[in-house]
Protein backbone atom coordinates (compact mmCIF):
# COMPACT_ATOMS: atom_id res chain seq x y z
CA UNK A 1 0.00 0.00 0.00
CA UNK A 2 2.96 2.31 0.52
CA UNK A 3 4.60 1.82 -2.81
CA UNK A 4 3.63 0.83 -6.29
CA UNK A 5 5.07 -2.38 -7.62
CA UNK A 6 3.60 -2.13 -11.09
CA UNK A 7 6.34 -2.06 -13.70
CA UNK A 8 9.00 -3.54 -11.44
CA UNK A 9 9.73 -6.76 -13.25
CA UNK A 10 12.93 -8.60 -14.02
CA UNK A 11 14.16 -9.44 -17.47
CA UNK A 12 17.28 -11.17 -16.13
CA UNK A 13 17.87 -13.50 -13.19
CA UNK A 14 20.44 -11.19 -11.68
CA UNK A 15 17.75 -8.56 -11.27
CA UNK A 16 15.40 -11.09 -9.74
CA UNK A 17 18.13 -12.42 -7.45
CA UNK A 18 18.84 -9.00 -5.90
CA UNK A 19 18.57 -8.82 -2.12
CA UNK A 20 15.92 -6.11 -2.41
CA UNK A 21 13.96 -6.64 -5.59
CA UNK A 22 11.71 -3.62 -5.10
CA UNK A 23 13.10 -0.18 -5.87
CA UNK A 24 11.43 1.39 -2.85
CA UNK A 25 13.13 -1.06 -0.48
CA UNK A 26 16.51 -0.15 -1.91
CA UNK A 27 15.82 3.56 -1.53
CA UNK A 28 14.59 3.00 2.01
CA UNK A 29 17.73 1.10 2.97
CA UNK A 30 20.06 3.67 1.46
CA UNK A 31 18.34 6.52 3.28
CA UNK A 32 18.55 4.55 6.51
CA UNK A 33 22.28 3.99 6.03
CA UNK A 34 22.78 7.63 5.13
CA UNK A 35 20.95 8.61 8.29
CA UNK A 36 23.00 6.25 10.44
CA UNK A 37 26.35 7.33 9.00
CA UNK A 38 25.78 11.07 8.53
CA UNK A 39 22.86 12.35 10.55
CA UNK A 40 23.24 10.34 13.75
CA UNK A 41 26.80 11.48 14.50
CA UNK A 42 25.47 15.04 14.59
CA UNK A 43 22.23 14.34 16.39
CA UNK A 44 23.39 11.81 18.98
CA UNK A 45 25.08 12.59 22.28
CA UNK A 46 27.75 10.62 24.17
CA UNK A 47 25.21 8.85 26.35
CA UNK A 48 23.36 7.58 23.31
CA UNK A 49 26.53 6.48 21.55
CA UNK A 50 28.15 4.72 24.50
CA UNK A 51 25.12 3.37 26.35
CA UNK A 52 22.59 2.64 23.60
CA UNK A 53 23.81 2.63 20.02
CA UNK A 54 27.14 0.84 20.32
CA UNK A 55 25.86 -2.04 22.51
CA UNK A 56 22.81 -2.27 20.25
CA UNK A 57 24.97 -2.64 17.15
CA UNK A 58 27.37 -5.10 18.73
CA UNK A 59 24.60 -7.26 20.13
CA UNK A 60 22.88 -7.26 16.73
CA UNK A 61 26.08 -8.61 15.24
CA UNK A 62 26.39 -11.24 17.96
CA UNK A 63 22.75 -12.12 17.37
CA UNK A 64 23.48 -12.57 13.67
CA UNK A 65 26.38 -14.82 14.56
CA UNK A 66 24.23 -17.09 16.69
CA UNK A 67 21.30 -16.85 14.29
CA UNK A 68 23.39 -18.25 11.45
CA UNK A 69 24.16 -21.26 13.60
CA UNK A 70 20.85 -21.76 15.41
CA UNK A 71 18.25 -20.00 13.32
CA UNK A 72 19.52 -21.06 9.91
CA UNK A 73 21.58 -24.20 10.43
CA UNK A 74 19.43 -25.36 13.37
CA UNK A 75 22.32 -26.15 15.71
CA UNK A 76 21.46 -25.03 19.25
CA UNK A 77 24.34 -23.31 21.02
CA UNK A 78 24.92 -21.89 24.49
CA UNK A 79 28.55 -21.04 23.88
CA UNK A 80 28.16 -17.74 22.04
CA UNK A 81 29.82 -15.70 24.77
CA UNK A 82 32.83 -18.02 24.73
CA UNK A 83 33.41 -17.38 21.04
CA UNK A 84 33.00 -13.65 21.66
CA UNK A 85 35.64 -13.91 24.39
CA UNK A 86 38.00 -15.76 22.09
CA UNK A 87 37.52 -13.07 19.46
CA UNK A 88 38.18 -10.28 21.95
CA UNK A 89 41.29 -11.82 23.46
CA UNK A 90 42.68 -12.93 20.11
CA UNK A 91 42.26 -9.43 18.69
CA UNK A 92 43.91 -8.02 21.81
CA UNK A 93 46.88 -10.33 21.43
CA UNK A 94 47.28 -9.65 17.74
CA UNK A 95 47.33 -5.90 18.45
CA UNK A 96 49.73 -6.53 21.32
CA UNK A 97 52.16 -8.92 19.71
CA UNK A 98 52.06 -7.88 16.08
CA UNK A 99 53.06 -4.23 16.32
CA UNK A 100 51.40 -2.01 13.77
CA UNK A 101 48.90 -4.51 12.46
CA UNK A 102 45.88 -2.50 11.28
CA UNK A 103 42.90 -2.61 13.62
CA UNK A 104 40.45 -4.14 11.18
CA UNK A 105 42.93 -6.82 10.25
CA UNK A 106 43.44 -7.71 13.92
CA UNK A 107 39.69 -7.97 14.36
CA UNK A 108 39.40 -10.20 11.30
CA UNK A 109 42.20 -12.39 12.66
CA UNK A 110 40.49 -12.44 16.06
CA UNK A 111 37.32 -13.56 14.34
CA UNK A 112 39.32 -16.18 12.50
CA UNK A 113 40.69 -17.62 15.74
CA UNK A 114 37.18 -17.67 17.18
CA UNK A 115 36.05 -19.49 14.05
CA UNK A 116 38.70 -22.15 14.59
CA UNK A 117 37.68 -22.63 18.23
CA UNK A 118 34.04 -22.82 17.16
CA UNK A 119 34.84 -25.52 14.63
CA UNK A 120 36.69 -27.46 17.30
CA UNK A 121 33.63 -27.51 19.56
CA UNK A 122 31.36 -28.02 16.59
CA UNK A 123 33.07 -31.24 15.58
CA UNK A 124 30.77 -33.43 17.71
CA UNK A 125 27.77 -31.98 15.90
CA UNK A 126 27.92 -34.71 13.27
CA UNK A 127 27.37 -37.51 15.74
CA UNK A 128 25.17 -35.74 18.29
CA UNK A 129 22.05 -33.68 17.85
CA UNK A 130 19.71 -31.35 19.72
CA UNK A 131 20.29 -31.09 23.46
CA UNK A 132 23.28 -33.33 23.32
CA UNK A 133 24.97 -30.59 21.33
CA UNK A 134 24.36 -28.21 24.24
CA UNK A 135 27.01 -30.14 26.12
CA UNK A 136 29.58 -29.36 23.50
CA UNK A 137 28.78 -25.66 23.41
CA UNK A 138 28.56 -25.42 27.21
CA UNK A 139 31.90 -27.16 27.41
CA UNK A 140 33.21 -24.39 25.17
CA UNK A 141 31.58 -21.80 27.43
CA UNK A 142 33.18 -23.05 30.63
CA UNK A 143 36.48 -24.18 29.21
CA UNK A 144 37.22 -20.93 27.40
CA UNK A 145 36.47 -18.65 30.34
CA UNK A 146 38.53 -20.94 32.57
CA UNK A 147 41.45 -21.03 30.17
CA UNK A 148 41.46 -17.26 29.67
CA UNK A 149 41.56 -16.61 33.42
CA UNK A 150 43.89 -19.49 34.19
CA UNK A 151 46.63 -18.70 31.66
CA UNK A 152 47.57 -15.07 32.15
CA UNK A 153 49.54 -15.08 28.90
CA UNK A 154 46.28 -14.36 27.08
CA UNK A 155 45.82 -11.16 29.05
CA UNK A 156 49.47 -10.23 29.00
CA UNK A 157 49.79 -11.19 32.70
CA UNK A 158 47.32 -8.61 33.88
CA UNK A 159 45.48 -9.21 37.16
CA UNK A 160 42.41 -11.49 36.86
CA UNK A 161 42.79 -11.51 33.08
CA UNK A 162 41.58 -7.98 32.49
CA UNK A 163 42.40 -6.62 29.05
CA UNK A 164 41.87 -3.10 27.85
CA UNK A 165 41.34 -1.61 24.42
CA UNK A 166 44.26 -0.74 22.14
CA UNK A 167 44.27 2.69 20.54
CA UNK A 168 41.42 2.66 18.04
CA UNK A 169 42.62 4.26 14.86
CA UNK A 170 42.34 3.40 11.20
CA UNK A 171 44.92 4.88 8.81
CA UNK A 172 45.68 7.68 11.21
CA UNK A 173 42.05 8.61 11.92
CA UNK A 174 41.53 8.62 15.68
CA UNK A 175 38.34 6.79 16.64
CA UNK A 176 38.55 6.81 20.45
CA UNK A 177 35.80 9.38 20.89
CA UNK A 178 32.27 8.01 21.41
CA UNK A 179 31.31 9.13 17.89
CA UNK A 180 34.41 7.51 16.45
CA UNK A 181 33.73 4.25 18.26
CA UNK A 182 30.13 4.41 17.05
CA UNK A 183 31.16 4.90 13.44
CA UNK A 184 33.75 2.14 13.63
CA UNK A 185 31.20 -0.27 15.10
CA UNK A 186 28.56 0.76 12.58
CA UNK A 187 30.89 0.28 9.63
CA UNK A 188 31.99 -3.18 10.75
CA UNK A 189 28.44 -4.27 11.60
CA UNK A 190 26.99 -3.05 8.30
CA UNK A 191 29.73 -4.80 6.36
CA UNK A 192 29.25 -8.08 8.15
CA UNK A 193 25.46 -7.94 7.82
CA UNK A 194 25.88 -7.52 4.09
CA UNK A 195 28.05 -10.62 4.13
CA UNK A 196 25.57 -12.49 6.30
CA UNK A 197 22.66 -11.63 4.05
CA UNK A 198 24.56 -12.85 1.01
CA UNK A 199 25.46 -16.05 2.81
CA UNK A 200 21.91 -16.96 3.75
CA UNK A 201 20.72 -16.19 0.21
CA UNK A 202 23.48 -18.33 -1.28
CA UNK A 203 23.83 -22.07 -1.80
CA UNK A 204 25.35 -22.45 1.65
CA UNK A 205 22.43 -20.67 3.29
CA UNK A 206 20.00 -22.98 1.54
CA UNK A 207 22.00 -26.01 2.62
CA UNK A 208 21.93 -24.76 6.23
CA UNK A 209 18.17 -24.46 6.13
CA UNK A 210 17.91 -27.85 4.47
CA UNK A 211 19.92 -29.41 7.28
CA UNK A 212 17.78 -27.55 9.79
CA UNK A 213 14.44 -28.54 8.31
CA UNK A 214 15.11 -32.17 7.38
CA UNK A 215 18.64 -33.45 7.61
CA UNK A 216 17.93 -36.94 6.27
CA UNK A 217 16.49 -35.49 3.09
CA UNK A 218 19.43 -33.09 2.91
CA UNK A 219 21.89 -35.97 3.06
CA UNK A 220 19.94 -37.92 0.46
CA UNK A 221 20.25 -34.93 -1.87
CA UNK A 222 23.99 -35.00 -1.54
CA UNK A 223 24.47 -32.16 0.90
CA UNK A 224 27.60 -32.93 2.92
CA UNK A 225 26.26 -32.68 6.47
CA UNK A 226 29.54 -32.38 8.32
CA UNK A 227 30.92 -29.71 6.00
CA UNK A 228 27.70 -27.74 6.13
CA UNK A 229 27.46 -27.88 9.91
CA UNK A 230 31.12 -27.09 10.47
CA UNK A 231 30.91 -24.12 8.12
CA UNK A 232 27.94 -22.94 10.16
CA UNK A 233 30.04 -23.18 13.33
CA UNK A 234 33.03 -21.51 11.72
CA UNK A 235 31.15 -18.58 10.19
CA UNK A 236 29.01 -18.13 13.28
CA UNK A 237 32.19 -18.22 15.33
CA UNK A 238 33.78 -15.57 13.12
CA UNK A 239 30.83 -13.20 13.45
CA UNK A 240 30.67 -13.76 17.21
CA UNK A 241 34.41 -13.27 17.49
CA UNK A 242 34.32 -9.91 15.77
CA UNK A 243 31.30 -8.99 17.88
CA UNK A 244 33.32 -9.90 20.95
CA UNK A 245 36.21 -7.70 19.88
CA UNK A 246 33.84 -4.79 19.32
CA UNK A 247 32.14 -5.46 22.64
CA UNK A 248 35.48 -5.36 24.43
CA UNK A 249 37.08 -2.43 22.65
CA UNK A 250 34.43 -0.10 21.26
CA UNK A 251 31.81 -0.66 23.95
CA UNK A 252 33.42 -1.54 27.30
CA UNK A 253 37.01 -0.49 26.75
CA UNK A 254 38.26 -2.96 29.36
CA UNK A 255 36.91 -6.46 29.87
CA UNK A 256 37.71 -9.63 31.80
CA UNK A 257 36.88 -13.19 30.75
CA UNK A 258 33.91 -13.27 33.13
CA UNK A 259 32.39 -10.45 31.13
CA UNK A 260 31.64 -13.24 28.69
CA UNK A 261 29.91 -15.68 31.03
CA UNK A 262 26.95 -17.96 30.47
CA UNK A 263 24.47 -15.14 31.01
CA UNK A 264 25.89 -13.34 28.00
CA UNK A 265 25.24 -16.47 25.96
CA UNK A 266 21.68 -16.55 27.24
CA UNK A 267 21.28 -12.87 26.44
CA UNK A 268 22.28 -13.50 22.83
CA UNK A 269 20.00 -16.51 22.60
CA UNK A 270 17.15 -14.31 23.86
CA UNK A 271 17.96 -11.72 21.21
CA UNK A 272 17.38 -14.20 18.45
CA UNK A 273 14.32 -15.77 20.07
CA UNK A 274 12.66 -12.39 20.55
CA UNK A 275 13.96 -11.00 17.27
CA UNK A 276 13.27 -14.04 15.17
CA UNK A 277 15.09 -17.29 14.46
CA UNK A 278 16.18 -17.54 10.85
CA UNK A 279 15.85 -13.84 10.12
CA UNK A 280 18.42 -11.17 9.42
CA UNK A 281 16.28 -8.21 10.42
CA UNK A 282 15.31 -10.02 13.60
CA UNK A 283 18.79 -9.62 15.07
CA UNK A 284 18.41 -5.83 15.02
CA UNK A 285 14.93 -5.95 16.47
CA UNK A 286 15.91 -8.38 19.19
CA UNK A 287 19.06 -6.45 20.10
CA UNK A 288 17.14 -3.18 20.20
CA UNK A 289 14.64 -4.81 22.50
CA UNK A 290 17.28 -6.26 24.83
CA UNK A 291 19.09 -2.94 25.07
CA UNK A 292 16.11 -0.65 25.40
CA UNK A 293 13.89 -2.79 27.61
CA UNK A 294 15.96 -2.39 30.83
CA UNK A 295 16.25 1.33 30.23
CA UNK A 296 12.51 1.53 29.75
CA UNK A 297 11.84 -0.56 32.83
CA UNK A 298 14.04 1.51 35.14
CA UNK A 299 12.42 4.67 33.81
CA UNK A 300 9.01 3.22 34.51
CA UNK A 301 10.05 2.29 38.02
CA UNK A 302 11.39 5.81 38.47
CA UNK A 303 7.90 7.08 37.70
CA UNK A 304 6.42 5.05 40.54
CA UNK A 305 6.31 6.65 44.02
CA UNK A 306 9.68 6.28 45.70
CA UNK A 307 10.23 3.25 47.96
CA UNK A 308 7.46 1.24 46.35
CA UNK A 309 10.09 -0.82 44.55
CA UNK A 310 13.66 -0.57 45.81
CA UNK A 311 16.50 -0.52 43.32
CA UNK A 312 17.59 -4.05 44.22
CA UNK A 313 14.28 -5.42 43.03
CA UNK A 314 14.53 -3.94 39.57
CA UNK A 315 17.00 -6.59 38.51
CA UNK A 316 14.68 -9.34 39.70
CA UNK A 317 11.75 -7.70 37.94
CA UNK A 318 13.81 -7.55 34.78
CA UNK A 319 14.67 -11.23 35.01
CA UNK A 320 11.05 -12.19 35.46
CA UNK A 321 9.92 -9.88 32.69
CA UNK A 322 12.45 -11.37 30.28
CA UNK A 323 11.53 -14.89 31.25
CA UNK A 324 7.83 -14.19 30.74
CA UNK A 325 8.50 -12.48 27.44
CA UNK A 326 10.49 -15.43 26.17
CA UNK A 327 7.66 -17.79 27.00
CA UNK A 328 5.05 -15.47 25.52
CA UNK A 329 7.03 -15.16 22.30
CA UNK A 330 7.58 -18.89 22.02
CA UNK A 331 3.86 -19.45 22.50
CA UNK A 332 2.42 -16.59 20.46
CA UNK A 333 5.02 -15.76 17.83
CA UNK A 334 7.76 -18.40 17.65
CA UNK A 335 9.31 -16.55 14.75
CA UNK A 336 9.71 -13.39 16.76
CA UNK A 337 9.35 -9.70 16.06
CA UNK A 338 10.73 -10.09 12.54
CA UNK A 339 7.80 -12.31 11.66
CA UNK A 340 5.35 -9.70 12.94
CA UNK A 341 6.93 -7.14 10.63
CA UNK A 342 6.96 -9.60 7.74
CA UNK A 343 3.28 -10.41 8.22
CA UNK A 344 2.44 -6.73 8.24
CA UNK A 345 4.46 -6.19 5.09
CA UNK A 346 2.83 -9.06 3.24
CA UNK A 347 -0.62 -7.76 4.08
CA UNK A 348 0.32 -4.21 3.17
CA UNK A 349 1.52 -5.39 -0.24
CA UNK A 350 -1.92 -6.85 -0.94
CA UNK A 351 -4.01 -4.21 0.80
CA UNK A 352 -6.91 -3.67 0.37
CA UNK A 353 -7.30 -7.25 -0.81
CA UNK A 354 -6.99 -10.11 1.63
CA UNK A 355 -4.98 -12.52 -0.51
Amino acid at each position, binding site marked *: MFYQEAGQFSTRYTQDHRVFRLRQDRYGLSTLLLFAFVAVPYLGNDYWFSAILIPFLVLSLAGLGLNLLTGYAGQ*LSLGSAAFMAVGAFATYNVELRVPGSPLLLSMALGGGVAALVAVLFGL*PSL*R*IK*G*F*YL*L*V*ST*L*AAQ*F*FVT*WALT*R*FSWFSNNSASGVISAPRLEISGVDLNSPVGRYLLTLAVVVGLFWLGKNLVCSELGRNWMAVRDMD*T*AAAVMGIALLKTKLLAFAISGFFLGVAGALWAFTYLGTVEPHGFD*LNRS*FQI*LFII*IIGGLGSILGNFLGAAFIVLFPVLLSNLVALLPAGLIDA*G*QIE*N*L*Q*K*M*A*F*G*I*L*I*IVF*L*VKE*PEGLARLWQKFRERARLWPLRY
Partner: protein
Amino acid sequence: MEFFFEVLIGGLLAGVMYALVAIGFVLIYKASGVFNFAQGAMVLFSALTFVSLLERGVPFWLAFVISLTAMVLLAVAVERAVLRPLVNRSPITLFMATLGLSYVIEGFAQALWGAQVHGLELGISDEPLELGGMLLSQFDIFAAVTAALLVLALSLLFNKTRIGLSLRAVADDPLAALAVGIRLQRVWVLVWAVAGFVGLVAGLLWGARLGVQFSLSLVVLKALPVLIIGGFTSISGAIVGGLIIGASEKLAEVYLGPVIGGGIENWFPYVLALLFLLVRPAGLFGERAIERV
Protein backbone atom coordinates in the same frame (compact mmCIF):
# COMPACT_ATOMS: atom_id res chain seq x y z
CA MET B 1 46.17 -45.28 48.02
CA GLU B 2 43.86 -44.60 50.93
CA PHE B 3 43.93 -40.97 49.99
CA PHE B 4 42.78 -41.98 46.53
CA PHE B 5 39.86 -43.90 48.00
CA GLU B 6 38.94 -41.02 50.27
CA VAL B 7 38.80 -38.71 47.28
CA LEU B 8 36.92 -41.30 45.30
CA ILE B 9 34.29 -41.92 47.98
CA GLY B 10 33.98 -38.19 48.64
CA GLY B 11 33.45 -37.71 44.94
CA LEU B 12 30.89 -40.48 44.77
CA LEU B 13 28.94 -38.98 47.64
CA ALA B 14 29.04 -35.56 46.02
CA GLY B 15 27.88 -37.35 42.90
CA VAL B 16 24.79 -38.42 44.81
CA MET B 17 23.79 -34.76 44.92
CA TYR B 18 24.19 -34.38 41.18
CA ALA B 19 22.16 -37.53 40.77
CA LEU B 20 19.37 -36.04 42.88
CA VAL B 21 19.08 -33.03 40.60
CA ALA B 22 19.42 -35.22 37.53
CA ILE B 23 16.57 -37.46 38.66
CA GLY B 24 14.27 -34.44 38.59
CA PHE B 25 15.30 -33.93 34.98
CA VAL B 26 14.75 -37.52 33.99
CA LEU B 27 11.27 -37.62 35.51
CA ILE B 28 10.16 -34.60 33.52
CA TYR B 29 11.92 -35.62 30.34
CA LYS B 30 10.37 -39.07 30.44
CA ALA B 31 6.84 -37.88 31.03
CA SER B 32 6.65 -34.68 28.96
CA GLY B 33 9.66 -34.85 26.67
CA VAL B 34 10.78 -31.52 28.05
CA PHE B 35 14.43 -30.85 28.72
CA ASN B 36 13.77 -28.83 31.86
CA PHE B 37 16.47 -26.23 32.24
CA ALA B 38 14.44 -24.73 35.11
CA GLN B 39 15.20 -27.69 37.39
CA GLY B 40 18.01 -25.72 38.99
CA ALA B 41 15.76 -22.76 39.56
CA MET B 42 13.22 -25.09 41.14
CA VAL B 43 15.89 -26.40 43.51
CA LEU B 44 16.75 -22.83 44.44
CA PHE B 45 13.16 -21.74 44.84
CA SER B 46 12.12 -24.67 47.04
CA ALA B 47 15.17 -24.46 49.27
CA LEU B 48 14.91 -20.69 49.54
CA THR B 49 11.25 -20.89 50.51
CA PHE B 50 11.96 -23.56 53.07
CA VAL B 51 14.84 -21.69 54.68
CA SER B 52 13.09 -18.36 54.75
CA LEU B 53 10.11 -19.96 56.44
CA LEU B 54 12.37 -21.58 59.03
CA GLU B 55 14.01 -18.23 59.68
CA ARG B 56 10.54 -16.77 60.22
CA GLY B 57 10.03 -19.32 62.98
CA VAL B 58 7.85 -21.75 61.10
CA PRO B 59 8.33 -25.31 62.41
CA PHE B 60 10.39 -27.65 60.27
CA TRP B 61 7.58 -29.96 59.11
CA LEU B 62 5.20 -27.10 58.37
CA ALA B 63 7.87 -25.27 56.38
CA PHE B 64 8.48 -28.50 54.47
CA VAL B 65 4.77 -28.89 53.73
CA ILE B 66 4.41 -25.28 52.64
CA SER B 67 7.41 -25.42 50.33
CA LEU B 68 6.04 -28.63 48.91
CA THR B 69 2.67 -27.00 48.22
CA ALA B 70 4.54 -24.14 46.61
CA MET B 71 6.20 -26.63 44.28
CA VAL B 72 2.84 -28.22 43.45
CA LEU B 73 1.35 -24.81 42.67
CA LEU B 74 4.37 -24.10 40.50
CA ALA B 75 3.80 -27.40 38.69
CA VAL B 76 0.18 -26.43 38.00
CA ALA B 77 1.20 -23.00 36.79
CA VAL B 78 3.88 -24.42 34.50
CA GLU B 79 1.44 -26.90 32.98
CA ARG B 80 -1.10 -24.15 32.33
CA ALA B 81 1.25 -21.43 31.11
CA VAL B 82 3.98 -23.38 29.32
CA LEU B 83 3.31 -27.03 28.58
CA ARG B 84 -0.30 -26.79 27.41
CA PRO B 85 0.18 -23.92 24.97
CA LEU B 86 3.41 -25.42 23.66
CA VAL B 87 2.13 -28.96 23.14
CA ASN B 88 3.44 -30.60 19.93
CA ARG B 89 6.17 -28.01 19.52
CA SER B 90 9.76 -28.94 18.81
CA PRO B 91 11.79 -30.03 21.85
CA ILE B 92 14.17 -27.16 21.21
CA THR B 93 11.30 -24.70 21.59
CA LEU B 94 10.26 -26.36 24.84
CA PHE B 95 13.82 -26.21 26.10
CA MET B 96 14.04 -22.50 25.38
CA ALA B 97 10.73 -22.04 27.15
CA THR B 98 12.13 -23.68 30.29
CA LEU B 99 15.10 -21.35 29.94
CA GLY B 100 12.66 -18.47 30.20
CA LEU B 101 10.92 -20.30 33.01
CA SER B 102 14.15 -20.54 34.99
CA TYR B 103 14.53 -16.77 34.67
CA VAL B 104 11.02 -16.24 35.97
CA ILE B 105 11.46 -18.57 38.92
CA GLU B 106 14.86 -17.22 39.91
CA GLY B 107 13.64 -13.66 39.61
CA PHE B 108 10.55 -14.47 41.61
CA ALA B 109 12.41 -16.39 44.32
CA GLN B 110 14.87 -13.58 44.85
CA ALA B 111 12.26 -10.87 44.65
CA LEU B 112 10.30 -12.73 47.31
CA TRP B 113 13.03 -13.85 49.70
CA GLY B 114 15.93 -11.60 48.82
CA ALA B 115 19.29 -12.56 47.41
CA GLN B 116 21.40 -12.94 50.58
CA VAL B 117 22.91 -16.27 51.59
CA HIS B 118 20.93 -18.27 54.16
CA GLY B 119 22.65 -20.84 56.34
CA LEU B 120 20.69 -24.05 56.72
CA GLU B 121 21.14 -26.44 59.67
CA LEU B 122 19.57 -29.83 59.26
CA GLY B 123 21.03 -31.03 62.54
CA ILE B 124 23.52 -33.42 61.09
CA SER B 125 27.03 -32.83 62.26
CA ASP B 126 29.50 -32.57 59.43
CA GLU B 127 32.44 -33.94 61.41
CA PRO B 128 34.23 -36.69 59.56
CA LEU B 129 33.65 -40.29 60.52
CA GLU B 130 36.28 -43.00 60.62
CA LEU B 131 35.25 -45.87 58.38
CA GLY B 132 37.63 -48.69 57.50
CA GLY B 133 40.60 -46.41 57.95
CA MET B 134 39.04 -43.69 55.81
CA LEU B 135 37.62 -40.36 56.91
CA LEU B 136 34.15 -39.80 55.50
CA SER B 137 31.80 -36.89 56.12
CA GLN B 138 28.72 -38.01 58.05
CA PHE B 139 26.72 -35.52 56.13
CA ASP B 140 27.66 -37.05 52.83
CA ILE B 141 26.61 -40.44 54.09
CA PHE B 142 23.33 -38.99 55.30
CA ALA B 143 22.80 -37.43 51.90
CA ALA B 144 23.55 -40.71 50.21
CA VAL B 145 21.04 -42.53 52.41
CA THR B 146 18.37 -39.90 51.74
CA ALA B 147 18.98 -40.19 48.05
CA ALA B 148 18.71 -43.96 48.25
CA LEU B 149 15.41 -43.68 50.11
CA LEU B 150 14.14 -41.15 47.60
CA VAL B 151 14.97 -43.39 44.66
CA LEU B 152 13.31 -46.30 46.46
CA ALA B 153 10.17 -44.19 47.03
CA LEU B 154 10.12 -43.12 43.42
CA SER B 155 10.49 -46.62 42.06
CA LEU B 156 7.64 -47.70 44.34
CA LEU B 157 5.56 -44.80 43.05
CA PHE B 158 6.23 -45.79 39.48
CA ASN B 159 5.93 -49.53 39.67
CA LYS B 160 3.27 -50.06 42.32
CA THR B 161 0.68 -47.27 41.89
CA ARG B 162 -1.89 -46.55 39.18
CA ILE B 163 -0.44 -43.08 38.77
CA GLY B 164 2.95 -44.57 38.17
CA LEU B 165 1.43 -46.91 35.60
CA SER B 166 -0.21 -44.11 33.65
CA LEU B 167 3.01 -42.18 33.98
CA ARG B 168 5.03 -44.91 32.36
CA ALA B 169 2.34 -45.24 29.71
CA VAL B 170 2.71 -41.58 28.84
CA ALA B 171 6.47 -41.91 28.78
CA ASP B 172 6.24 -44.86 26.39
CA ASP B 173 3.71 -43.46 23.95
CA PRO B 174 1.75 -40.28 24.65
CA LEU B 175 -0.76 -40.87 21.87
CA ALA B 176 -1.56 -44.39 22.98
CA ALA B 177 -1.84 -43.11 26.54
CA LEU B 178 -4.33 -40.50 25.37
CA ALA B 179 -6.20 -43.19 23.49
CA VAL B 180 -6.73 -45.26 26.63
CA GLY B 181 -8.05 -42.20 28.40
CA ILE B 182 -5.07 -41.06 30.41
CA ARG B 183 -5.21 -37.29 30.89
CA LEU B 184 -1.82 -35.94 29.85
CA GLN B 185 -2.27 -32.63 31.64
CA ARG B 186 -2.82 -34.32 34.98
CA VAL B 187 0.18 -36.56 34.52
CA TRP B 188 2.33 -33.57 33.64
CA VAL B 189 1.27 -31.66 36.74
CA LEU B 190 1.97 -34.71 38.82
CA VAL B 191 5.40 -35.27 37.34
CA TRP B 192 6.41 -31.67 37.68
CA ALA B 193 5.22 -31.73 41.29
CA VAL B 194 7.26 -34.84 42.01
CA ALA B 195 10.24 -33.25 40.29
CA GLY B 196 9.65 -30.25 42.51
CA PHE B 197 9.71 -32.51 45.56
CA VAL B 198 12.94 -34.10 44.44
CA GLY B 199 14.24 -30.61 43.84
CA LEU B 200 13.28 -29.62 47.38
CA VAL B 201 15.17 -32.53 48.91
CA ALA B 202 18.17 -31.85 46.72
CA GLY B 203 17.94 -28.16 47.60
CA LEU B 204 17.97 -28.89 51.32
CA LEU B 205 20.97 -31.16 51.10
CA TRP B 206 22.92 -28.78 48.87
CA GLY B 207 21.76 -25.83 50.95
CA ALA B 208 22.90 -27.42 54.17
CA ARG B 209 26.27 -27.80 52.51
CA LEU B 210 26.96 -24.54 50.74
CA GLY B 211 24.25 -22.40 52.23
CA VAL B 212 21.07 -21.59 50.34
CA GLN B 213 21.92 -18.99 47.73
CA PHE B 214 21.63 -18.16 44.06
CA SER B 215 24.47 -20.45 43.07
CA LEU B 216 22.15 -23.35 43.89
CA SER B 217 20.40 -22.82 40.57
CA LEU B 218 23.71 -23.49 38.86
CA VAL B 219 23.77 -27.15 39.92
CA VAL B 220 21.62 -27.65 36.85
CA LEU B 221 24.79 -27.10 34.85
CA LYS B 222 26.33 -30.05 36.67
CA ALA B 223 23.27 -32.18 36.10
CA LEU B 224 23.52 -31.83 32.33
CA PRO B 225 26.66 -33.90 31.81
CA VAL B 226 25.29 -36.38 34.32
CA LEU B 227 22.28 -36.84 32.06
CA ILE B 228 24.40 -37.13 28.99
CA ILE B 229 26.36 -39.94 30.50
CA GLY B 230 23.36 -41.64 32.07
CA GLY B 231 20.93 -41.03 29.26
CA PHE B 232 17.92 -38.75 29.51
CA THR B 233 15.38 -41.43 30.15
CA SER B 234 16.79 -43.65 32.85
CA ILE B 235 16.74 -42.95 36.59
CA SER B 236 19.35 -45.55 37.33
CA GLY B 237 21.35 -43.95 34.54
CA ALA B 238 21.05 -40.61 36.30
CA ILE B 239 22.41 -42.10 39.50
CA VAL B 240 25.29 -43.90 37.83
CA GLY B 241 26.06 -40.81 35.80
CA GLY B 242 25.98 -38.67 38.92
CA LEU B 243 28.43 -40.95 40.68
CA ILE B 244 30.75 -41.06 37.68
CA ILE B 245 30.77 -37.30 37.33
CA GLY B 246 31.17 -36.67 41.04
CA ALA B 247 34.04 -39.09 41.42
CA SER B 248 35.85 -38.20 38.21
CA GLU B 249 35.69 -34.47 38.76
CA LYS B 250 37.07 -34.77 42.28
CA LEU B 251 39.84 -37.05 41.11
CA ALA B 252 40.57 -34.74 38.21
CA GLU B 253 40.68 -31.77 40.57
CA VAL B 254 43.10 -33.52 42.90
CA TYR B 255 45.34 -35.24 40.37
CA LEU B 256 45.05 -33.12 37.21
CA GLY B 257 44.56 -29.82 39.03
CA PRO B 258 48.20 -29.36 40.05
CA VAL B 259 49.28 -30.09 36.49
CA ILE B 260 47.06 -27.84 34.40
CA GLY B 261 45.72 -25.57 37.13
CA GLY B 262 42.87 -25.48 39.59
CA GLY B 263 39.18 -24.85 39.08
CA ILE B 264 38.87 -27.37 36.33
CA GLU B 265 35.86 -29.11 37.90
CA ASN B 266 33.40 -26.76 36.28
CA TRP B 267 34.36 -27.77 32.74
CA PHE B 268 35.83 -31.22 33.27
CA PRO B 269 32.41 -32.94 33.51
CA TYR B 270 31.48 -31.56 30.12
CA VAL B 271 34.60 -32.75 28.42
CA LEU B 272 34.02 -36.13 30.02
CA ALA B 273 30.41 -36.14 28.83
CA LEU B 274 31.57 -35.15 25.38
CA LEU B 275 33.97 -38.06 25.23
CA PHE B 276 31.14 -40.34 26.31
CA LEU B 277 28.92 -38.95 23.58
CA LEU B 278 31.43 -39.58 20.85
CA VAL B 279 31.54 -43.20 21.94
CA ARG B 280 27.88 -43.71 22.81
CA PRO B 281 25.74 -40.95 21.26
CA ALA B 282 22.70 -42.01 23.28
CA GLY B 283 24.40 -42.22 26.68
CA LEU B 284 25.01 -45.29 28.77
CA PHE B 285 21.41 -46.35 29.24
CA GLY B 286 19.68 -44.46 26.48
CA GLU B 287 18.07 -46.27 23.57
CA ARG B 288 19.32 -45.46 20.10
CA ALA B 289 16.31 -44.78 17.85
CA ILE B 290 16.11 -46.05 14.27
CA GLU B 291 15.40 -43.21 11.86
CA ARG B 292 12.22 -43.88 9.88
CA VAL B 293 12.06 -42.29 6.47
